[in-house]
Structures are given as structure tokens and as C-alpha cells.
């Protein structure tokens, strides 16, 4: 190889090196930028979620304030009633009373992965489910759908196809969010060709009580 062509080769190599160096920088910057700057649509969604969640917070602040003033005015029997009402309300959240109300039913005819089942639970919570059950098992905060070689297990009980999720909440909002374009149902149907999922609005859904136990063996309340 002549000195000339060696030099030419060297020049090309250095040129490429320079380009690559900068390209590297750019990639790094792009990843940071992608993480930092949510797109306008994302930002709009974040804003609308915040507006909604703040409205809910305000509503609950209002409810607690009136509860507080009832306490301040009430005596004897009324105090008892207020306590019982509050107890029942928290029991609904904890799955310890049978509940009923409007909502949606999602029926999945076929097998999906356990992670997809868990994501469905998350999605239903995301659309505003106040209480829910799958195949008659009430789902509480720590309920997790698990699986083994034989199939799915929830609250320690084996469940089998079809999987029927029932969730109490605003029917239109929930059904709309679930069945929207690019929503969870569309994604599942795309992932599992031929999978049949139906979403139905229901005027009245009745959910059973959670039959498991709550045992705090490790955690204690901070006084």
C-alpha cells in the first residue's frame, strides 16, 4: 500500500470516527430529551388526569368536612350512626361487605397470560372501578392473579375459562376506555388472534365479599 492511499484511508477513518463521536452524543441527548419532555398530547392527558383527580380530592375533602361538623353537633345515637357509616364505607374499599352498583362485565373466552390478566385488573382500576371481582373472587388491594401449570389462581382459589371480570363504576366511562382504539381489549385481541372478548354494560352488578383474611404479621401502625 502506498503512502498516499494509506493517508487517504486514515483520513476516511478519522472522518468516520468524528461522525460517530458526535452521533453518539446525539443519541444520548435524544434519550434524555425523550424522557424529559412529554409530548403535548401526553401533557394534555396528564393535565386532564390531574384535573379529575383534584376534583375527586375536593369532593372527599368536602365529605369529610361535613362528617366532621356532624360529629361536632351530634351526640349519642347520631355519633354511633356516623361511625357505622364510615366503617361501612371503608369496608367497601376493603372488600369486606357485599356491594352492588352499575358497571361493566368483561368476558374473555380463551386463554391469556397471567401478566395480561394482571394488566386487565390494573386497567379496570384505571378506568375508575370502585370494586371488582373475577370469576366470583372479590379483588382487594393485595389480591394477585397467579398461575401454575394447571391454570390461574386468585385469592388461593383456582379459576378457569371463561374469565369474567365484573367491575362497579361509571358504565360509559369504563366501557369507553376499555374498548377504545388502541385500548386494552384491542391490544389483547391483536396479541391473541381469534380471542373473543366482550364488554357489556350492566345496570346492576353484585360483588361477593372477600373471603380471605388480613393478617398483619410484620407491619404495625405508626403512632
Amino acid at each position, binding site marked *: 500500500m502506498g503512502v498516499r492511499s494509506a493517508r487517504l484511508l486514515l483520513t476516511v477513518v478519522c472522518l468516520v470516527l468524528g461522525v460517530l463521536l458526535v452521533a453518539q452524543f446525539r443519541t444520548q441527548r*435524544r434519550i434524555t430529551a425523550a424522557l424529559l419532555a412529554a409530548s403535548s398530547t401526553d401533557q394534555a392527558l396528564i393535565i386532564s388526569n390531574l384535573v379529575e*383527580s383534584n376534583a375527586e380530592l375536593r369532593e*372527599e375533602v368536602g365529605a369529610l368536612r361535613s362528617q366532621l361538623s356532624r360529629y361536632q353537633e351530634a351526640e349519642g345515637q347520631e355519633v354511633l350512626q356516623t361511625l357505622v357509616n364510615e366503617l361501612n364505607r371503608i369496608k367497601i374499599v376493603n372488600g369486606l361487605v357485599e356491594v352492588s352498583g352499575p358497571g361493566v362485565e368483561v368476558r374473555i373466552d380463551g386463554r391469556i397470560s397471567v401478566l395480561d390478566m394482571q394488566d386487565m385488573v390494573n386497567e379496570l382500576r384505571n378506568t375508575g372501578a370502585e370494586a371488582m371481582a373475577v370469576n366470583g373472587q372479590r379483588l382487594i388491594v393485595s389480591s394477585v392473579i*397467579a398461575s401454575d401449570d394447571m391454570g390461574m389462581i386468585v385469592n388461593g382459589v383456582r379459576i378457569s375459562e371463561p374469565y369474567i371480570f365484573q367491575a362497579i363504576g361509571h358504565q360509559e366511562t369504563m366501557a369507553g376506555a376499555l374498548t377504545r382504539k388502541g385500548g386494552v381489549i384491542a391490544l389483547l385481541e391483536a396479541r391473541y388472534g381469534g380471542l373473543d372478548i366482550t364488554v357489556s354494560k350492566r345496570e346492576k352488578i353484585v360483588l361477593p365479599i372477600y373471603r380471605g383474611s388480613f393478617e398483619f404479621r410484620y407491619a404495625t401502625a405508626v403512632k
Partner: protein
Amino acid sequence: MAISRRNISIFVAGLVLGLLLVAQWNSPAVQPSAQGYGRDRMAVTTQRLEREQEELKETLARLREQLAEYQRSAAASTEMLEEINAALESQRIVAGLVALKGPGVEVILDDSSVQALPAGADLSAYIVHEYDLRDVVNLLWQASSEAIAINDERIVATTSIYCVGSTVMVNDTRLSPPYRIQALGDPVLQEGLLRDPAYLGELKERVKLYGIQFKVVKMGEMTLPAYRGSFLTRYAKAG
């Protein structure tokens, strides 16, 4: 000697030329200013709403504390009230309305530590996604955890972990990495399941291949904050 010195100058010249070329090609794309302005306003709105959310959460927490105080003092009067009050207190603990302490594990999840990505790399492989957090949380419940929080947001019955673009939201609150998942329970059982190769396969693969950070630390004692969001039951009625 002469040649090698010349080679060095060629090297430097080539490098500079390359840098300049790319700098040129990379010259600032013209940003429509209107869009930039809109984005700024949105960021301001988001911040304002987040401040408001923070204030509302504080108010809610204070009201809950006052109510609990009332209920405690009211309960002291009769035996029946006392009984109901005890039930209320334990239901509050189950619901996540009380700060809890105890042993457990802390899981730290963070975006890849890789400094320079190979050209054309799939960026999404290098960041922690909302489904990663979800899978870890589900696994921690499976490991009989008694309470869980992500970056101090307590997981309750109505919590969903979702994302808007690349922003992770928990209890409608924006979280950013690193994510610290704290779970009270039996640390040995929790760690065993987290490290079990049968679980979190996809995440562990990305830890190995793309440098996603995943750390599990057993904790002797830690404190999880109470849930500060709302528990509205507008549609569900008892019975």
C-alpha cells in the same frame, strides 16, 4: 518521523472535519415558537395542578386525622362505640389510611446506566416502564407483602400504575426514576420470589442486556406513608 507527524495532523484534521460536518447537519432545527409557547403553558398548568393536588392531599390527611381523633374521643363514652371504633381503626389500616412500619424489602428500579447507546438502539429497552413496576408490585403481593409504596405513593385497592407517554403515574401522581418500591413483609420470602428466575423474566433480561438497574435490599425496619388520595364510592353501595 515526518510521516507520523503528518499522520497526526491528518488525524486531527479529519476529526475536526467530521465534527464540523455533523455539527452542520445537526444545526438547530427551527422550532415553531407557538408550539414551544403552548408547551410552556402546559408545563405551568401541570405544575399548578400538582401543587393543588399536594395541598388537597395535605388537607385530606389533616381532616382524616381530626376525624379519627373525634371518633376516638366519642368512642370513649360507651362500650359499643368503643367496639365500632376499634373496627374502624383496623379497617383503616387495611385500606392503607395509616402509616405502617416493619421489616421488608426495598426494590430500586432505574433507567439504564449505559452512557452511550449504540446507534439505532431501541430506546425503550433502556428505560423502566410502568409495566415493570406493575409486575414487581404484583410479585410482591404474591410474596405475601402486607403494604407497598412506590416513591412514597401507597398502593391501595383503587391504585392503578399507568403511563402517559414516558411518564409513570401512580395514584394520578407523576413519578420519575429512580423508582423505590418498599414492601413490608417477610424479607426472606420477598427476596426469594424477586430473585426466582421464574419471575420478572423480561425485566431481568433487560437488566443483563441493556443495563437497567434492579436492586433488592432487605430491610430490618422501614416506614411506609399513609395513602393521601381519595376513596370515593359513588357507585358501589353496600349490600
